[in-house]
């Protein structure tokens, strides 16, 4: 039986176990004078039975599914005649894929040596046996778990405590999964980064000012030496993000203040959702808006005042990105400003402060942590944004502070490095991991610094 069929079956069993245990707990309680004489409500006995039925069975299922492939492969390889035993892992995987293709009927058995055909039949029987054993074992575990829980439906046993403990552990596992995933990503990126620094010195990477990531196929190739200096990429990222934040922070903050303090209820209830819709527009749409409308407009405008501007510019990408992240600033700020107690406003207004004085001196300092949080979220969106930059700011890694020139960013380069068919052992592709690592470190530092600032300047109301 397939894993996909086993899973629902186990769940059905768990539901059955729930129902049976529920009925049994009521039956046990009846002669005693009602469920008040049980240590726990029937719901808890039933839930415990369901958990006992499902959790061990699912663990067994997961373990079996995890190991069966490796074990079967080992047996299949061992079944081959001694003289064709693979010498390297590469060769082994080649033979195995041939075997499994024959077994699946994708490869005509006439085209392959006999020993492959033999191994394919071994593989097939092993697969069938494994599936049968797996189904039998999982169902056995599920039923015996449920049966065990069934015998433990008794008035003096407190199922509530068991259920609560188990649930707590399940929640913990869920939280741990998120943390472990993050740790896993960071770990794998670090490993690849170290491999990259084996090929390109870290000082070149951090301090060189030219970025031209290519590796030679032949030694005599023109321009065979790649340059992996991140400085142009980071200045590009910072330039575009700074332009975006220069747009988003004032617009977002002031619109949040308007919406929360000045706008009537009617205006607020329509304007806020509309503003939040900006965040829902796909970035690709922003991208062509930037590339086809804003960038040419900026170029024409620059020409009119006698400045030279390229048709793809950091300014265009930054402006459009700024519009995109306005809702992050405005919506979050609006929420925290509204959360400042009315008593603070009343206190200030009653002293004769105007609405704007109240805003500036009382509400804003109290709402500061949330506002900074919104700005940080917006900043990380800006730093991580790729699509708009690809379309509106170009791919040229220029080291410049002129917003009218075309620049590129870290994320854009990561994307272009990994697009298409790539071998994953050249400096070119590995540099993507190093860029990712560096970007991660920079955003992390940004967050830490912002947190420190918030802690220093915030005014905490209780």
């Amino acid at each position, binding site marked *: 039986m397939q894993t996909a069929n086993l899973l629902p079956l186990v769940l059905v069993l768990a539901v059955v176990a729930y129902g049976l245990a529920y009925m049994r707990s009521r039956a046990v309680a009846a002669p005693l004078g009602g469920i008040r004489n049980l240590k726990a409500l029937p719901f808890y006995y039933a839930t415990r039975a369901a958990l006992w039925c499902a959790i061990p069975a699912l663990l067994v299922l997961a373990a079996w599914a995890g190991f069966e492939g490796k074990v079967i492969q080992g047996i299949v390889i061992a079944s081959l005649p001694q003289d064709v035993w693979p010498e390297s892992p590469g060769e082994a995987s080649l033979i195995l894929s041939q075997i499994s293709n024959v077994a699946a009927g994708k490869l005509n058995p006439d085209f392959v040596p006999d020993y492959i055909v033999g191994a394919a039949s071994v593989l097939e029987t092993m697969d069938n046996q494994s599936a049968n054993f797996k189904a039998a074992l999982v169902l056995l575990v599920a039923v015996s778990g449920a049966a065990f829980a069934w015998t433990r439906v008794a008035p003096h046993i407190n199922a509530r405590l068991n259920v609560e403990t188990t649930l707590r552990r399940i929640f913990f596992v869920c939280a741990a999964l998120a943390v472990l995933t993050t740790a896993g990503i960071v770990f794998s990126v670090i490993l690849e980064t170290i491999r990259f620094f084996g090929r390109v010195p870290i000082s070149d990477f951090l301090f060189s000012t030219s970025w031209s990531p290519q590796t030679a196929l032949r030694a005599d190739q023109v321009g065979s030496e790649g340059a992996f200096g991140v400085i142009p990429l980071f200045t590009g990222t910072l330039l575009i993000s700074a332009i975006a934040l220069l747009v988003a922070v004032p617009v977002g903050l002031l619109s949040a203040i308007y919406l929360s303090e000045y706008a009537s209820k009617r205006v607020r209830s329509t304007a806020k959702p509309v503003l939040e819709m900006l965040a829902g527009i796909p970035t690709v749409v922003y991208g062509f808006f930037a590339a086809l409308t804003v960038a040419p407009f900026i170029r024409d405008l620059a020409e009119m005042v006698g400045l030279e501007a390229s048709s793809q510019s950091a300014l265009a990408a930054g402006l459009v990105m700024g519009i995109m992240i306005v809702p992050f600033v405005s919506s979050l700020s609006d929420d925290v400003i509204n959360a400042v*107690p009315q*008593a603070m406003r*009343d206190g200030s207004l*009653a002293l*004769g*402060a*105007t609405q704007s004085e109240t805003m500036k001196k009382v509400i804003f300092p109290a709402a500061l942590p949330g506002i900074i949080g919104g700005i940080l979220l917006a900043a990380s969106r800006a730093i991580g944004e790729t699509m708009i930059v690809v379309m509106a700011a170009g791919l040229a890694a220029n080291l410049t502070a002129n917003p009218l020139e075309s620049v590129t960013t870290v994320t854009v380069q990561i994307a272009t490095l990994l697009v298409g068919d790539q071998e994953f052992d050249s400096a070119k592709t590995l540099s993507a991991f190093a860029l990712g690592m560096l970007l991660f470190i920079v955003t992390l530092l940004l967050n830490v610094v912002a947190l420190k600032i918030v802690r220093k300047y915030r005014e*905490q109301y209780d």
Partner: protein
Amino acid sequence: MNTMNPAVTSEADMPEETIAPVDEDKPAETLVEEGKTVGDPFSENPKFKLRNVEVFYGQDRAIKNISLDIGRNEVIAFIGPSGCGKSTFLRCLNRMNDSIDICRVKGQLSIDDHDIYDPKRDVVELRARVGMVFQKPNPFPKSIYDNVAYGPRIHGLANRKSDLDEIVENSLRKAGLWDEVKDRLDAVATGMSGGQQQRLCIARAIAVSPEVILMDEPCSALDPIATAKVEELISEMSESYTIVIVTHSMQQAARVSHRTAYFHLGHLVEVNETTKVFTAPEHELTESYITGRFG
């Protein structure tokens, strides 16, 4: 019309022996005639002159045709059961109701013969003259010093730092808080006890040198000792300020005020000298309230 009225229904629910002297077949509402206030609502030297005041929340009429004078340097207490409109009426005096969208105020309200609700009137200047202390202490989450200096700063009352220091010290002294906080003016105000916070709010109000101080149940969140301190403070302040205090504690009204106004369901039922109200109330509703029959 009366069937919707919570006060009336709750009265009907009361057990036999606690029913007010009000006749069962004669609900409280019918005992008050709109705009008719017994006692002496007017004063010879009024600070506030309030005539035919009505306040609406949307369609609801929360204040029904009230006329009252508030004398210069007098302490007047507003008492009455919850929801009778005394806080709403108080908040008309410095236009704090402005921030509530659906609230409308009608009638003639003036302070020193200047219209309070004149559309051209600068509400900032009005609130600088009419300070307010709220039910729940609401110090800003700033230092004690900054809390008191807040008003003087926004009104430009001090030219130099030393002037500001002096204002802060004087205000804290008047609020009886100076000795407790003089060594920790930089401490965050929200870390003080509830009673200290409320006295800080009073100091904050005094710091802009207002002429009137409105107090909306200033002691309802305080313990008895803190309450006693605030009451003592009110008695001292009555020499230099006009004070309007809303309170649920009749003992408090009796202790601190010169005149007492009894509100009922948006009506001003009776206004008299405090001693008179508590010893010989003229209106039967006032009597039932102060003897604790309802409220």
